[in-house]
């Protein structure tokens, strides 16, 4: 029941995710584009290497679940699901518009393939614990992935779920943390993330890996190791990503939680991306 692998490179998938995200950002003239560009490589590996799913049947019970805690990253997940064929490409222009199936914050009731309603941070990992328990009860071998942000690790409820997953030996649970060191008010490492992150998860009993989330080979290796690890414990991949990755003039901009892009800069960003189109 494995998803068919194509011979399109992961670099090309990540490029397409970035491109879809830029096109959606252009529609609204705003958006969490910095996060989407940063996390594109991790999503490429998730949707085109690691996850099992059927694009034409997002509710298929054999699928790996991908829970997006961080509702504002919806632009990035839509971009990936469009590339994956779960969402139709011709809806890109509706992103964030009234009556769209792709609202600016990700919600389960709006979008095929959007498993949970995110946006209120600190919920995803707890729901993932329950889903992982449920899959085990059903003897369903699927994995539950939960994509969290670094800021979300400040929420106490996240750590309740961290401990619970260890208690229940959830070896079918993989947490993916997008660590871009940027939360709403500033750098995460100047707030509650002042201690190295992977060491914390390791101390709590998780199989913890920390990788450069913009190094495709490293991300692939980490996802493979997480899936094939033999220990009866949950797994976490801390992905250190760079906001705005792939668009140098945006990478160099003073990075904030909500990156400002001037109206004429969307086309400029798209042309820069197109110049670097991978094979």
């Amino acid at each position: 029941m494995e998803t068919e692998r194509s011979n399109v490179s992961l670099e090309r998938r990540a490029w397409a995710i970035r491109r879809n995200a830029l096109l959606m950002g252009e529609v609204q003239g705003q958006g969490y584009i910095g996060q989407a560009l940063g996390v594109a490589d991790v999503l490429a590996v998730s949707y085109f290497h690691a996850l099992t799913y059927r694009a034409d049947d997002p509710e298929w019970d054999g699928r790996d679940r991908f829970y997006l805690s961080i509702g504002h990253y919806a632009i990035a997940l839509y971009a990936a699901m469009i590339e994956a064929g779960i969402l139709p490409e011709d809806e890109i222009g509706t992103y964030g518009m009234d009556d769209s199936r792709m609202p600016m914050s990700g919600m389960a009731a709006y979008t095929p393939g959007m498993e949970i309603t995110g946006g209120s941070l600190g919920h995803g990992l707890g729901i993932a614990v329950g889903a992982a328990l449920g899959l085990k009860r059903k003897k369903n071998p699927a994995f539950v992935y939960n994509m969290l942000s670094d800021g979300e690790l400040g929420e106490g409820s996240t750590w309740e779920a961290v401990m619970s997953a260890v208690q229940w030996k959830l070896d079918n649970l993989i947490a993916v943390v997008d660590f871009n060191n940027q939360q709403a008010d500033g750098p995460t490492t100047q707030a509650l993330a002042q201690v190295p992150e992977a060491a914390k998860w390791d101390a709590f009993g998780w199989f913890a890996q920390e990788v450069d989330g913009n190094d495709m080979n490293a991300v692939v290796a980490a996802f493979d190791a997480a899936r094939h690890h033999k220990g009866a414990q949950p797994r976490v991949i801390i992905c250190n990503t760079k906001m705005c990755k792939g668009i140098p003039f945006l990478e160099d901009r003073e990075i904030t939680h909500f990156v400002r892009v001037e109206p004429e800069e969307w086309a400029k960003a798209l042309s820069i991306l197109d110049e670097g189109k991978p094979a």
Partner: protein
Amino acid sequence: MNKQELSRRQSKYTARVAPKGERLATSAMIASLDSEGRDTIAAPFGHALVDLAKTREDIVGLTADLSKYTDLHVFAKAYPDRFYQMGMAEAVLMSAAAGLAREGFTPFATTYAVFASRRAYDFIIMAIAEENLPVKIVCALPGLTTGYGPSHQATEDLAIMRGMPNLTIIDPCDAVEIDQATRAIADHPGPVYMRLLRGQVPNVLGEYGYKFKLGKAQMLRDGRDVLFVSSGFMTMRTLDAAKALQKDGVDCGVLHVPTIKPLDTETIIAEACKGGRLVVTAENHSVTGGLGEAVAATLMRAGVHVPFRQIGLPDAFLDAGALPTLHDQYGISVDAVTTSVKGWLA
């Protein structure tokens, strides 16, 4: 997911069609509540707090990663050593505010209304309210002031907070009132929950010579046919609707009720008793458990039987979308209010 639930979900999203033609874009979460052509004042809460802090050394500010989005960054910049960035952690935000209050400080703790009312409730009620500590909880995005959907729309925060003993609840209308209320709640000896409009906030009450008084409802204009009883930015809407209805010969009074708890029952009863007016409550909140039901209960308990209607958000999870679209859709725009009142009077 069971079959019934699955089918509900699928029907919901397959029923949504791709928009055709011109549609409004979702306004930014951080966008101010705009009012075309109206004067605005920048960050009234932040500036009032900075002004207060000049003479009140007990005032400190805390936030859970939302200083920029609650205007507390103005205070943080002016008094960096009196500002605590608590990170994305609302439970410890409230518990630590309680601890600071126990040591004699007057903490202003900010986050979004959804996170204070939903997530931090237990920490507010036990650590702060039960001990009657002077913590001021000031929250942006009250009611329907963002198009981001239920995760950010605090449509039931007043219902939640009204259940908490000792807590004073303020729902200010505009920049003038936010400035005055910030000063008033700093002087109040107990805990306060205040809804906040941030960024460029309209100046509405300036022309009425209004002065905020904690616990007091005030008539902003009188009228023979309809008595609006409104709070928060819905008072902007009822004032505008009253002007619009005037042109159709409908004379509307507006009683502004910024203090939701304790409610100024004396003024509400006295005004409701004045001569055969249709009483219409209007609030930026669910029709369940907010101002409307508080006023209705007040009148019933006092044996006041008058024609009564309620304007508020439905008891539902609201859509995502552009605010003007949503305010029309859910009946709290000026046009929608005007239309409702005309329908009731017809």
